[in-house]
């Protein structure tokens, strides 16, 4: 009996995952800013090719981006970012796997703004860190817009800032994230 219940439980979870609506994007925008008050120039980059998939049934959400897709104001900064900081030859991608904490409060079939937090793991530069990110979910018909602002500690991902420029690059990067996801 217990086994039967368990099986039904798992099956129904699986079924809900299978039939749940999924939302996808390939054009999410992530920008970061690691400028400090002593930086001689603005240290910031943006990636407009963040891919993501949201399972509205389970609240699971994943994002992935190519590090080399980050664009900078200065080409040299882009080169340094890739070569010396994120080592994108070795760690080509960064991803986030998480789950919406207040899924019950979000109605994906009704337009509106919902505040939320997403808890998950962010992998960058080959190192994974647990994160809880506050943000908003805006439902607009068949689209779901996500936006969030949060900080990424470079140390969490073992991204090393040389002592020479230690006060010119922030130890925590401010990240702004926006994505418009469309129903699959």
């Amino acid at each position, binding site marked *: 009996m217990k086994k039967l219940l368990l099986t039904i439980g798992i099956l129904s979870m699986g079924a809900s995952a299978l039939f749940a609506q999924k939302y996808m994007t390939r054009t999410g925008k992530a920008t970061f800013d690691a400028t400090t008050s002593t930086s001689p120039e603005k240290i910031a980059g943006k990636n407009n090719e963040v891919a993501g998939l949201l399972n509205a049934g389970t609240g699971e959400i994943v994002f992935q981006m190519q590090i080399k897709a980050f664009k900078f104001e200065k080409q*040299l900064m882009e080169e340094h970012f890739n070569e010396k900081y994120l080592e994108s030859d070795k760690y080509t991608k960064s991803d986030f796997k998480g789950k919406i904490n207040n899924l019950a409060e979000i109605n994906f079939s009704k337009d509106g703004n919902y505040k939320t937090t997403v808890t998950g793991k962010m992998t960058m530069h080959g190192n994974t860190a647990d994160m809880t990110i506050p943000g908003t979910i805006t439902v607009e018909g068949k689209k779901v817009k996500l936006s969030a602002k949060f900080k990424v500690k470079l140390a969490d991902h073992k991204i090393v800032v040389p002592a020479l420029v230690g006060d010119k690059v922030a130890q925590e990067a401010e990240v702004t994230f926006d994505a418009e996801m469309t129903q699959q």
Partner: protein
Amino acid sequence: MTKSKIKGLLLACMVTAGFSATAQDDLLNELNSSLPPVKEYAFATFKSTRLIDGSTVECLGPGVLDFRITHRFGAVSSGAENFWGIDNAYTKIAFDYGVNRWLMLGIGHSAFNKEYDGSVKIKLLRQQIGAGSPVTVTYFGNTSMETLPAPTLADSSYKWLASNRMFFTNQIIIGRKFSKTFSVQIMPSMVHYNLIDSAKYKNNTYAIGIGFRKMFSRSSAITAEYFYRLNNSSMTVSGQPTYNTFSIGYEVETGGHVFQLMLSNAQALNERTFIGQTTDQWAKHQLHIGFNISRVFTVVKPKGYEEKGGDKDNKGSWGSAGGDKDKDANVTENKKSVKEPKKAEKKEFKKSPKTDKDFNVNEKASSNW
């Protein structure tokens, strides 16, 4: 609670926990499989557009200006009275500009024979990671002209033509980044001399160059470069024998500068001299200490970073992560800047036709919380 109940509960917890973890991986795999394959190119094969004397496969980025000061002192073998060569230096000042991702144009002036030169560099192939081209291939062309006063000719029936002063170089540079720290390039080269010492020699000198760069720290590397002539190796210049050029160097990068220090038997700084007309040799320790300093400037900012694009406006709103306190500031900021950057942004990120309105629009959304 019976033992079996506890066991059951535990099992259920484990199963659900395991399920949710793998579900996220599954979701990521699902996302991955739906994405088109990414073409990845090697970058920073060499740190600069010049290895030591010769060019590398690298071009400048679009809108980037490189100001380069090159210095070669006299021969170390010239002794203490010349302060081991430091007294006699040739300088070259050059500007190179990246027109787009694959085209670079340059002008320069070198003190040796007061030579002006213009150059063009075209990236033909980019090394790709995985499938695709295993090498980066770049064409380099250079035309130079001496501007020394015309010599008095023994036979007055001869004329000293302007074309006598001109030299042309063509190079195909094939480079490969083997690892994060090690890159090699081969440079098949052809130099055309309009005027040569004797009819015994050919006007075209063909040579093969080889160069490498090995990094030994985050910012510094050792480099070497050698040009081997396939013909004309017995060519003389104003009666002096010529030798193949071999140079070793050390380069260090600090911010926007690349500083290169080298030791070479070539003193003059244009292709026509260091490929085919080097009159000094390692065997006699006729070596020249020299340095190159390169400083890059971003003249034209890439699309999406134009001044008017509102990045400066946004700086304030990036300043506090997740704070509700700057909500009002954001909203007003966005209202005024929503319209103007649209045009500039639209052209740029072609892959995102639906959502590329611009950053400010999205800022608006994020400022809701």
